[in-house]
């Protein structure tokens, strides 16, 4: 699609027209900025959407670029080297639904992405922004999944990468963050401390020409999560589900899924209907859930202590918006403890053959808790997100997922072991 020449004619962000402060509405030209100069509020991408039809989308590639006219990316994005994430399975989970007493349940299984988490979606958008701004290095603060996604995307795109993680992450995530050949730096501290470090690095000459996907490119990056909403609606036959359970770390994913649903309604791609958004946290890092339950509209930071390390953000940037959305849509924010997380991972694996990482255990655990408490309507169409792969968090279940017996290779030994 040819775009009219503008003041920023070197930049090509497709339908994106500006950045706008979510707090005070101040607008800015598209650029590598993320916080409002007036109030420090988060900047988000504003659009001038052209006409978009279901047919056009359905004829597009089987990845997130089928929605390129709804994203801040150039029109030719699908021809550029990137990981082509998305279009993951929406699994009809009748076994799990039966066990929980739900009529209609689907799992959006984002472990099927190229680096096995939803992070490939957001990184793909940030990568295009990095290219637009002429950055040579892709970077991030990460609880693990993002570091791997950034490393892989940079490798595919031919950019350098330098990613930062807390040093206590799961082994599989450390390996994945390192294997793609970029620089991996482990920081002796919590994720929030890593995040703070990156925010300071960005203002320093050491971070010159670096695109930190979740800091100075965050307005673009975050838009990638809208594709979860688009895909879920399209895979349901262009329908928004009645209720959806989404994990909450920074809260960005939840807020962007809501934004995605609202855009589909506004563009006439789905029927306007009410939907309820539920946020899921681990008890050991539940600042948003605590604020929800206390009736607060601000989030008091916490120091995380949970096996759900990918959700262990104690100072969640979009926490206040998660509260707004849960309340506006009639949803809720709930948390489960580590034991419930492990049980939920095993429940999902046993009923649906999906091995989720701990974050998926959190969402399924919260799904179960909200169903039992009556907060979720068992008759309503429900979607739950699994955002990552259990192979990355083996330690969570390794002690319990063991051979039933170790025997010699003989029928007699098998008979003896399983006679009862």
């Amino acid at each position, binding site marked *: 699609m040819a775009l009219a020449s503008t003041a920023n004619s070197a930049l090509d962000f497709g339908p994106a027209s500006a950045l706008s402060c979510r707090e005070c509405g101040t607008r800015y030209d598209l650029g590598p900025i993320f*916080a409002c100069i007036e109030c*420090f509020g988060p900047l988000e991408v504003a659009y001038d959407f052209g006409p978009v039809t279901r047919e056009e989308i359905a004829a597009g590639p089987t990845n997130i670029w089928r929605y390129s006219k709804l994203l801040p990316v150039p029109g030719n994005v699908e021809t550029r080297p990137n990981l082509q994430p998305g279009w993951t399975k929406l699994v009809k989970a009748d076994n799990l639904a039966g066990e929980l007493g739900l009529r209609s349940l689907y799992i959006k299984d984002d472990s099927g992405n190229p680096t096995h988490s939803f992070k490939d979606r957001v990184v793909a958008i940030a990568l295009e922004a990095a290219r637009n701004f002429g950055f040579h290095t892709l970077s991030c603060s990460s609880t693990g999944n993002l570091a791997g996604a950034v490393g892989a995307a940079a490798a595919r795109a031919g950019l350098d990468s330098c990613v930062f993680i807390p040093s206590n992450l799961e082994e599989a995530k450390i390996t994945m963050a390192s294997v793609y050949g970029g620089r991996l730096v482990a920081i002796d501290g919590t994720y929030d401390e890593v995040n*703070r470090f990156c*925010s*300071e690095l960005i*203002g320093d000459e050491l971070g010159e020409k670096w695109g930190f996907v*979740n800091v100075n490119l965050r307005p673009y990056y975050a838009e990638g999560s809208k594709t979860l909403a688009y895909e879920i609606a399209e895979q349901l036959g262009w329908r928004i589900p009645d209720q959806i359970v989404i994990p909450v770390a920074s809260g960005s994913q939840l807020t962007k899924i809501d934004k995605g649903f609202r855009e589909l309604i506004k563009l006439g791609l789905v029927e306007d209907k009410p939907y309820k958004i539920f946020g899921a946290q681990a008890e050991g890092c539940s600042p948003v859930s605590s604020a929800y339950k206390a009736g607060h509209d601000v989030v008091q930071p916490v120091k995380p202590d949970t096996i759900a390390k990918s959700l262990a953000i104690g100072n969640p940037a979009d926490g206040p918006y998660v509260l707004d959305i849960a309340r506006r849509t009639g949803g809720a924010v709930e948390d489960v403890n580590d034991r419930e997380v492990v049980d939920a991972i095993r429940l999902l694996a046993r009923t649906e053959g999906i091995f989720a990482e701990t974050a998926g255990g959190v969402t399924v655990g919260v799904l179960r808790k909200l169903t039992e408490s009556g907060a979720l309507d068992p008759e309503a169409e429900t979607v739950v997100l699994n955002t990552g792969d259990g192979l990355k968090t083996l330690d969570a279940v390794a002690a319990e997922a063991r051979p039933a017996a170790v025997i010699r290779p003989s029928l007699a030994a098998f008979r003896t072991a399983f006679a009862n």
Partner: protein
Amino acid sequence: MSVSVRIPTILRTYTGGAAEVSGEGGTLREVLQKLDADYPGIGARILDETGKIRRFVNVYVGEEDVRFVEGLDTPTPEGVQISVIPAVAGG
């Protein structure tokens, strides 16, 4: 107490581009008051109209997020580094 204050990129228009400036005060509140006296207007960017730290600003005294300690009353010992950072990052 003499302290140093790290200024985020979006507030460096107030400090003539300086990423770090020196400050003075026994508590964070006093340091921010002095900072605003030295660089008029910067205080209102960090604090809201009720005088509280803005919702999307993180302030650290040394390693500690002041929300975990005494907020604006957090003591600022001699030589400590204070950092003002946009909260909208990560995830």
